[in-house]
């Protein structure tokens, strides 16, 4: 048998030969065709259910955020926790007063302020952990008032301002009716508030 006949023999026998396909293959084809088409149809803007769900989700989110912010802004102002005010004279042993008011919302803020009410007093404001420590010396009228040179005053002023801003940033509970800048100060106990203002005034002078 030559090559031509050999080739024709194979072609005749196999070209139209039917191996019989199983319907499993059809099921796979059908699934691939129609499930993918269904997937294409589920586009958010084409599907009203999806659109509704999306709107509900956005609306719910907005409502929750509005309610949350109202509770936040109209909550009772709280005092700063762990604030210890220590009166001290030149001797460190004289530190006597250390009132500390606590509030569960401001546990992170650990600051200590020492203030001296005696004539010759050393006023120390220390804010631990996250806030910087600033020490300020104030002498009252009975003694010689020893003000630092201009540069020192400038540095102190800068330090106070930065403390003020940092406290402002870290203040956790805003107080209704106060501008943001004052909220931090208002959160501190009145004693600290007073002390801060006093020092600010002195530095400004």
């Amino acid at each position, binding site marked *: *048998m030559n*090559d031509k*006949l*050999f*080739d024709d*023999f*194979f*072609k005749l*026998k*196999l*070209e*139209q*030969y*039917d*191996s*019989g*396909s*199983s319907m*499993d*293959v*059809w099921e*796979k*084809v*059908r699934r*691939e*065709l*129609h499930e993918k*088409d269904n997937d294409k149809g589920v586009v958010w803007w084409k599907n009203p259910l999806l659109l509704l769900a999306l709107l509900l989700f956005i609306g719910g989110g907005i409502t929750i955020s509005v309610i949350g912010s109202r509770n936040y802004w109209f909550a009772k102002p709280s005092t700063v926790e762990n604030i210890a005010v220590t009166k001290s004279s030149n001797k460190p042993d004289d530190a006597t007063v250390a009132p500390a008011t606590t509030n569960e919302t401001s546990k992170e803020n650990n600051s200590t302020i020492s203030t001296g009410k005696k004539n010759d007093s050393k006023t120390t404001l220390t804010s631990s952990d996250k806030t910087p420590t600033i020490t300020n010396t104030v002498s009252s009228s009975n003694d010689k008032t020893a003000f630092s040179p201009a540069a020192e005053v400038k540095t102190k002023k800068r330090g106070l301002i930065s403390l003020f801003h940092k406290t402002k940033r870290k203040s956790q509970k805003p107080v209704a009716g106060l501008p943001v800048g004052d909220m931090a100060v208002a959160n501190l106990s009145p004693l600290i508030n007073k002390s801060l203002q006093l020092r600010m005034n002195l530095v400004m002078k």
Partner: protein
Amino acid sequence: MTEQELIHGCIQMDERCQRTLFEMYSGKMLTVCLRYSRDRMEAEDWLQDAFVKVFRNITQFKFEGSFEGWIRRIVINTSLKHLQKKRIHFNEVDEDKGNYQSVDPYVYSHMSEAELMKLISELPDGYKLVFNLHVIEGYSHEEIAKMLGIQDSTSRSQLVKARRHLQQAIINVHKQRLAV
């Protein structure tokens, strides 16, 4: 339902038409896949891929020429794509040239299609590919060379070797029958 109506139904993604068309051609097309693949499982995977392509691209059929031929081309191309992933080497297998015998036409007449399919599936990949493309599908050596990225001469030599290999296999089958 005529073939044309079926095709129009498939264009509209009518599932019943698609199923009828599949039942009409899947058997023959599975034979095509079986000739290129190693086993039935692989062939069925290729057939599935090919029919998905057929139904997705059926709008491209211009009603010129035979629809079966159009499907067959898709099936062959799909099979070749799968084969190309395997990186077939067209190595020449050493044949025992001294023992080559001519085959009596009588022997051929007793060979069934299933037996011939089995013999083809046992060919080395390169031989099988060129033999199927040239002898059964009717592609020229130039076309095969382009399709497979080989030289014309490689295609020719692979075909010659495939023929010899098959003839020898047919003789062996005949001998086994006589022995039984």
